[in-house]
C-alpha cells in the first residue's frame, strides 16, 4: 500500500529518516531521489517530456506553449546536449491531423532546456491542441484556447493556490482537468514551497528539482495540459514572507535562482520593456472579449518592507501601471489576480492579522481603492489566495468607515493542499474575525479545494469547490457554496440553495 504524502513524511520525520523520504535532501543521488519520489506518489511523463506540457497567457491570436526537457527530472544535470532542437505544432484537433501552426526552437541548457514558444496566427476564441517533439519522441497532446474578442456571453475559469506538495494530494486538479467547459485557470502563487524542516531550496538546481518534483504529480500535469494558465507568484515560490526589495547579496542570489526555476517551469509570456530574466515582469493585463479584464498583479518582486509610512506592495512602476489599468478599464468586469489578502483584516484581539498582506501597505491600498471608487464602475472583483481558507468580503475604499461604499468583492479561495488553521481555531475565531471586520461576509477554513468562476454580462458567480479528503488523489469534489455578484451592483450574496452549508462565519 502506498502511503499518502503527509503520512509518509510525518512518519519519516519521526523516524529521523528525512533523506529517505524527501528526494531533495542534499546528497541523494538521482536514482535514490527517484525512488524516494516514487514512494511519495511521484511519477513523470515519458522522457524527455517528463514534466509535461502547458500553455499560458492566451491572447486572441496567439498563446504561449511551454515544456521542459528533463529526462532525469531530479538530477542536477540533465543527460542532454547543451542545445536540443524541439519541434512544436498546433492543430485544431486532438489527433493533431490539421496543423495550423508549427515551428522549431532550440532548448538550451541555459534555461534548463525549457521551451517557451509563442504560437501565432490563431483564431480568437477557439480551442487548439499542441504537441512537442524532440529526440525522436513526442510529448503528450495539450489543449488550449485563445481569448475571444468582442461581445462575449460567458467565461468560466478556475483559480488555484497554495499547493504544498507535502500537505496533500491534488484531487481538485482532476476535477479541473476533466472540466472541458473551462476556459482557463489562474494560479495565485505558492505553486511550490521552498521546503522547511524537510530541506530547503537555495540554488537554481534546488529550485529546478523542487519544481520537477511538483510536476511529478500527474494531476498537476493533467490540469496544465488541459487548460491555459495565467500565473502569478507569492512568497513560497522563493521563501516565506520575503520582500523583493531586500538587497543582501545572499538574498539576491537565492531570489534569482527561484525566479529562474519558476520561469523555466511555467507557461509565462514575457512582455514589456522592463522585463529581463532572471527577474521577469509578471504584472500584466489580459482581456477575455469585452466581458472580463484580468489584472495580474505581482505582489512580491517590487514590494518594500511592510509597515513603512511610504511602503509599497506594488513598487512605483507597477502602481502607476495599475492606476492606468483602473482608469482605462472597459465596460466589462475587472478582476485582479491578487496573490494575497487585499481587504483589511483586523485581528480579534486588536491590530492586524498579518501585515505581510495588503494590511502592511495601508496607505497604498487606500490610494488605489480610492482610484477604483473614482473610476466609477461597480463590477470589480479580486481573486485571492495565500490564506489557505475561504473568505468572501466587501471591498471598501476605507474599511474603518462603515459608511464607505462597497466598491467590489474579494473572493479568497481555499488552498489546494496547504494546511489551514485547525477546526477548533476556525470555530472560535470565525465569529471573532467577523466581529472585527464588518466587511467580512463569509469564512470557511476547514476544507481544501479551489474556486470556479462563471462570469456573464449579467452576473459573477463564484463556486467554492472542495475536496472530501486532501490525502486521497481520487477524492470526490463538490460545491460547498456559491456566491453571486450582480452586474452593476457591488457586493456579493450567497446562493440561497447553498446558504446552509458549513462555515465558521456568515454575516447575519
Amino acid at each position: 500500500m502506498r502511503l499518502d504524502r503527509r503520512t509518509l513524511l510525518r512518519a519519516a520525520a519521526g523516524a529521523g529518516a528525512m533523506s529517505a523520504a524527501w528526494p531533495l535532501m542534499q546528497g541523494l543521488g538521482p536514482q535514490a531521489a527517484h525512488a524516494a519520489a516514487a514512494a511519495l506518489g511521484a511519477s513523470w511523463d515519458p522522457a524527455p517530456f517528463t514534466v509535461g506540457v502547458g500553455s499560458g497567457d492566451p491572447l486572441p491570436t496567439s498563446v504561449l506553449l511551454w515544456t521542459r526537457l528533463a529526462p532525469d527530472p531530479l538530477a542536477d544535470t540533465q543527460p542532454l546536449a547543451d542545445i536540443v532542437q524541439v519541434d512544436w505544432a498546433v492543430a485544431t484537433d486532438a489527433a493533431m491531423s490539421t496543423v495550423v501552426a508549427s515551428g522549431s526552437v532550440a532548448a538550451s541548457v541555459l534555461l534548463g532546456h525549457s521551451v517557451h514558444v509563442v504560437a501565432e496566427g490563431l483564431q480568437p476564441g477557439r480551442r487548439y491542441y499542441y504537441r512537442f517533439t524532440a529526440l525522436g519522441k513526442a510529448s503528450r497532446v495539450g489543449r488550449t484556447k485563445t481569448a475571444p474578442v468582442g461581445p462575449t456571453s460567458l467565461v468560466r475559469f478556475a483559480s488555484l493556490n497554495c499547493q504544498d506538495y507535502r500537505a496533500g494530494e491534488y484531487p481538485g486538479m482532476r476535477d479541473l482537468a476533466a472540466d472541458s467547459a473551462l476556459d482557463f485557470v489562474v494560479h495565485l502563487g505558492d505553486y511550490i514551497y521552498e521546503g522547511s524542516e524537510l530541506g530547503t531550496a537555495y540554488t537554481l538546481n534546488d529550485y529546478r528539482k523542487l519544481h520537477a518534483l511538483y510536476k511529478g504529480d500527474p494531476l498537476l500535469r493533467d490540469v496544465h495540459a488541459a487548460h491555459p494558465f495565467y500565473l502569478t507568484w507569492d512568497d513560497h515560490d522563493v521563501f516565506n514572507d520575503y520582500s523583493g526589495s531586500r538587497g543582501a547579496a545572499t538574498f539576491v542570489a537565492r531570489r534569482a535562482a527561484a525566479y529562474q526555476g519558476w520561469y523555466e517551469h511555467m507557461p509565462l509570456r514575457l512582455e514589456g520593456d522592463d522585463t529581463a530574466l532572471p527577474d521577469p515582469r509578471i504584472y500584466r493585463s489580459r482581456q477575455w472579449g469585452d466581458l472580463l479584464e484580468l489584472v495580474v498583479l505581482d505582489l512580491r518582486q517590487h514590494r518594500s518592507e511592510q509597515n513603512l509610512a511610504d511602503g509599497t506592495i506594488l513598487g512605483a512602476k507597477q502602481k502607476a501601471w495599475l492606476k492606468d489599468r483602473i482608469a482605462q478599464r472597459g465596460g466589462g468586469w475587472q478582476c485582479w489576480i491578487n496573490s494575497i489578502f487585499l481587504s483589511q483584516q483586523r485581528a480579534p484581539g486588536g491590530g492586524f492579522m498579518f501585515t505581510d498582506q495588503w494590511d502592511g501597505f495601508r496607505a497604498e491600498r487606500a490610494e488605489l481603492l480610492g482610484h477604483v471608487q473614482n473610476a466609477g464602475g461597480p463590477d470589480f472583483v479580486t481573486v485571492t489566495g495565500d490564506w489557505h481558507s475561504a473568505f468572501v468580503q466587501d471591498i471598501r475604499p476605507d474599511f474603518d468607515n462603515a459608511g464607505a461604499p462597497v466598491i467590489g468583492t474579494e473572493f479568497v479561495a481555499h488552498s489546494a493542499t496547504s494546511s489551514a488553521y485547525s477546526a477548533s481555531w476556525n470555530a472560535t475565531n470565525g465569529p471573532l474575525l467577523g466581529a472585527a471586520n464588518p466587511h467580512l461576509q463569509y469564512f470557511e477554513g476547514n476544507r481544501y479545494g479551489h474556486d470556479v468562476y462563471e462570469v456573464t454580462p449579467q452576473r459573477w458567480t463564484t463556486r467554492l469547490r472542495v475536496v472530501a479528503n486532501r490525502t486521497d488523489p481520487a477524492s470526490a469534489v463538490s460545491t460547498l457554496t456559491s456566491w453571486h455578484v450582480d452586474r452593476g451592483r457591488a457586493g456579493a450574496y450567497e446562493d440561497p440553495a447553498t446558504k446552509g452549508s458549513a462555515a465558521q462565519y456568515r454575516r447575519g
Partner: protein
Amino acid sequence: MQTPNLIANGGFETGLTGWSTIEGAAAVIAYGTAGYPTQTGPGPADRGANFAGGGNVARTRLRQQATLPWTAQIDAGSATFDFTGWLGGYADQDDGARLSVEFLSATGLPLGVCVLGPVTAADRGSTTGLLRRAQSGVVPPGSRTARTVLLFTRDGGTSNDGYADSVSLVLTTQPTNLLTNPGAEAGLSGWTVAEGGPAVIAYGTAGYPTQTGPGPANRGANFFGGGTSARSRMTQAVPLPGGAGQYEFGAYLGGYADQNDTASCTATFLDSAGGSLGVVGLAAVTAADRGNVTGLLRRATAGAVPAGARTVRVEVVFTRAGGTSNDGYADAISFGVVTGGS
C-alpha cells in the same frame, strides 16, 4: 575566431557610456578612492582606473543590448560565448552586484540566460574587492541580441556598495574552411600549379618533418613542399558565401633545420569582375622562428571581408634559399568566413 568584447565600456573607463540606467543611479568610482577598492586589492589585473558602484540608492540597474554577429554560426549551434565580470562589495557588508545576460530571439524572447554573482561578503572573506565570475556555453540558436543587466543592491546604510568591473561578453566560432584539400591529403587536387612543381610529402619521410615534430595537431598523413624548383607556387580560388563578414586565414608553414627555405601564403579578395580588392598575407616562418628545428608553425590573421568581394584566391609560394630541394613546407591551410557582421 573571436569577437571583440560585445559589452561597450565594460570597464567603466569612460563613465557610464554605453550603459542605460534603468533604475537608481550608478556611480563610477576610481580605484583608491578612500573607503573603496584599491588598485592592489582583489580585482581584475587590468582594472584600469575605474569601476562601477550602486551609488546612494537601494537598487541600481544598468542595461545594454548588443546585436550579435555570426547569425549563421549561431543558428548552426557553432558559436560559443564567454561571459565574465568582476563583482564585489565592501568589507563584511552584503551589498552586491549581480550580472546577467539574456540571449534574445528576433522577437525578444529569451532563449538563454546566464546569471553571475552576486558575490557575497562571505565569498569575499569580508574583504573589500571584486572577484571574477564567469560562464561559458553555446549561444542558443536563434539568438539575435544579448541583453546585459547589472543589478547593484544595498543591504543597509546609505551607500550601495555593490561593485562591478571588467564586464565582458565574447563570442567564438570556428569558421568552416572554404578550401579544398587544405592539407595535401588528396595530393594536389583542388590546387592549380602556377609555377615550379609543388610536392606532396608524407610526414616521417626521411629528412622531412615527422608526425611528432612541430606541426598541426591533426596533421594527417601529408604536407605540401616546394619540390625541387627554386620557386613553386600553387593557387586555389573559392567563391565567398553571401553575407561573409569576417575572415580567418591561417596555415602551418615551415622548413628544414637551419635552412631558410620558406613557404608563405596570400589571400586576394576579388570582386565580381576579378579585380583585386585587397591582399592579406601570412609571413614566412624562418629558420630562426623555428629555432632551427625542422617543422611547421602556425601563422594566422583575421579581418573584415572587403565590401564587394565575391571570390578569394589563396596562393602558396615555396621559396628555396639554396641547395636542390625546395624545403618550404605548408599544411592545414585554411580560409574561413563567418556571416552576419563582426
